[in-house]
């Protein structure tokens, strides 16, 4: 689960990391009010769960409350990478002397926590990694050792940070960020930029914070930070229904059982020249209610023209799945053409059941490839 900048900064603050004072606003009027309270120049920052805010014009300086209101009016409602800006963060403007980069992430390859720091902040870290790898200090934390102060020191010295006052502050922040990373069971905590002010104070000017969804059951406060309104409406509906769904950009709705098989289905649709409308995983089984919920989400997408239903019967037998599908179709009023491929245990029987019932918009195909071709054809 990704957090907004203002949410990540609130967590930073709790772990002692210096952040600028700010106010959240959902209307231009609130923005003016916030700027008034902060009493001085502010920055108005779009709160969206997408990168590239700055380039999209989602971050603007305002010298007065009136200006803050004006800037907020420009930013609120703006579309940034397909997401509408619904909130802005009004923050006291900083006098920036230098910009650094600090992150802690979950390194799946090494199976360790990865610390990264560079004095070349403010820009895309992947660029720094390519253009000047020697400037990027990288250090792992062994899970059996845990974090110690030397990790922070080594990171800072290896990145070539020279000012002793800054060294001390950054080492402390690394420790605090690590505490936030483990305490909030994060997959990523990134500060870019980590600024040095003209007074020599080191402070987090942005926050990128991703929390492990699997840990949310014991982090109720963070779980409650989820902003359903901000997500794609179909994805929000899917979450509500407990359906695993990712919106894509095509016309062929895809429904599979199991994440791997569903991904493979999306691939096959693409390989035969179609454009998948979504990824949707029914899970291991295929009971009627699950099918109903998934179809409801998939058909909620106006782009969808046909649906490819790809099921492999393992523990759940294909005859049972076929009956589930018929039952689900009985409960739903969908006129989309649907192509069903059933394979695995009792596949013959399952196909027979579907053919016998023969709903007008249902096509049964024997293989994934045949079914994909048919579904693409029907979407054309």
């Amino acid at each position: 689960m990704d957090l907004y900048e203002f949410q990540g900064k609130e967590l930073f603050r709790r772990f002692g990391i210096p952040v600028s004072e700010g106010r959240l606003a959902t209307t231009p009027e609130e923005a003016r009010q916030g700027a008034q309270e902060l009493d001085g120049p502010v920055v108005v920052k779009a709160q969206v769960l997408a990168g590239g805010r700055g380039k999209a014009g989602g971050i603007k300086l305002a010298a007065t409350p009136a200006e803050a209101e004006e800037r907020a009016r420009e930013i609120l409602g703006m579309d940034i990478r397909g997401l509408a800006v619904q909130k802005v963060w009004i923050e006291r403007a900083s006098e920036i002397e230098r910009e650094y980069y600090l992150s802690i992430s979950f390194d799946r390859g090494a199976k360790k926590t990865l610390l990264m720091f560079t004095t070349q902040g403010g820009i895309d870290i992947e660029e720094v990694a390519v253009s000047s790898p020697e400037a990027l200090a990288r250090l792992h934390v062994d899970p059996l050792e845990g974090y110690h102060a030397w990790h922070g020191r080594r990171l800072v010295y290896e990145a070539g940070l020279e000012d002793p006052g800054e060294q001390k502050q950054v080492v402390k922040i690394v420790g605090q960020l690590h505490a936030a990373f483990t305490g909030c069971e994060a997959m990523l905590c990134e500060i870019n930029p980590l600024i040095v002010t003209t007074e020599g104070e080191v402070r987090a000017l942005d926050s990128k914070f991703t929390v492990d969804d699997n840990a949310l059951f014991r982090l109720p406060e963070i779980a409650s930070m989820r902003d359903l309104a901000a997500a794609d409406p179909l994805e929000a509906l899917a979450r509500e229904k407990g359906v695993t769904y990712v919106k894509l950009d095509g016309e062929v709705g895809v429904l599979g059982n199991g994440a791997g098989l569903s991904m493979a289905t999306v691939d096959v649709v693409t390989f035969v020249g179609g454009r998948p409308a979504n990824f949707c995983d029914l899970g291991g089984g295929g009971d009627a209610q699950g099918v109903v919920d998934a179809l409801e989400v998939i058909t909620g997408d106006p782009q969808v023209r046909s649906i490819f239903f790809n099921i492999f019967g393992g523990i759940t037998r294909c005859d049972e799945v076929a009956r589930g599908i018929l039952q689900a179709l009985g409960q739903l009023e969908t006129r989309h053409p649907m192509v069903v491929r059933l394979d695995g245990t009792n596949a013959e029987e399952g196909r027979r059941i579907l053919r016998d019932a023969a709903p007008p918009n249902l096509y049964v195909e024997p293989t994934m490839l045949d079914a994909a071709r048919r579904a693409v054809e029907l979407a054309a």
Partner: protein
Amino acid sequence: MAILVDRSTRLVVQGLTGSEGRFHGLRNRSHGTDVVAGVTPGKGGQDVDGIPVFDTVAAAVEETEANTAMVFVPAPFAADAIYEAIDAGVGPIVCITEGVPAHEMLHIHAYVHVRGVAMIGPNCPGVLSPGKANVGIIPAEIFREGSVGLVSRSGTLTYQIGHELAQLGLGNSTIVGIGGDPVVGSSFVDVLARFESDPQTEQVVLIGEIGGEEEEKAAAFIESEMTKPVVAYIAGFTAPPGKTMGHAGAIISGSAGTAQAKKEALEARGVKVGTTPTETAELVAALVRA
């Protein structure tokens, strides 16, 4: 032979008294697996269709000489169950449970390695050695005994490919579902190393997907350490970056973890990569017949 589970497996099911634990525990037994015990704290002394239940794994081991554990307890308690199994001297440990927090798995991964315990999962379908033992939820009836080792991050996709192999008359030594989470107990490389030294296994199929870099590591391992031929399939060519595709581990981060990169890494090391499950099964069949 086969790997990880076979006729010497004596299985203790942690969470046997739950509905899923019971269903699959009994199913595993009906496939011939020696399911010797269950563990549910507070239910010691009961039994599940004749399988004795204990309060602790240690007691189960002492009474039944269990040597393999299957974890079926809910995610918030799964890590605890895994540590309990480790300290009771049991291994392999196969964790089926989905939703184990990643930070817990980070520590468990490091810990099982220093303790020298084989662990499979979490969020995996388990391990099946057809005709010998089944530990997990893989539907054994669609697989046949044979020479093809199969290792996969995915469940139904594995069944699909195993089914297609069976249609072509081929069977498997062992099918290992390593799980779809960002950190799992055994990686592709761990399992490939076992297949390489298993006499029954003659060919290997690797079923990967987007996310992480385990397929790339497997490619390097196949080139430098393996003599047996490997065929691969990768799911997720059309997955968009930054979206979790069902499995917690199936996510492209920035430019890392794409299916294309994995395919290229494997092909650069001489591994044939099928574009569909059917083609993948056919590539294996060609190998076996060669």
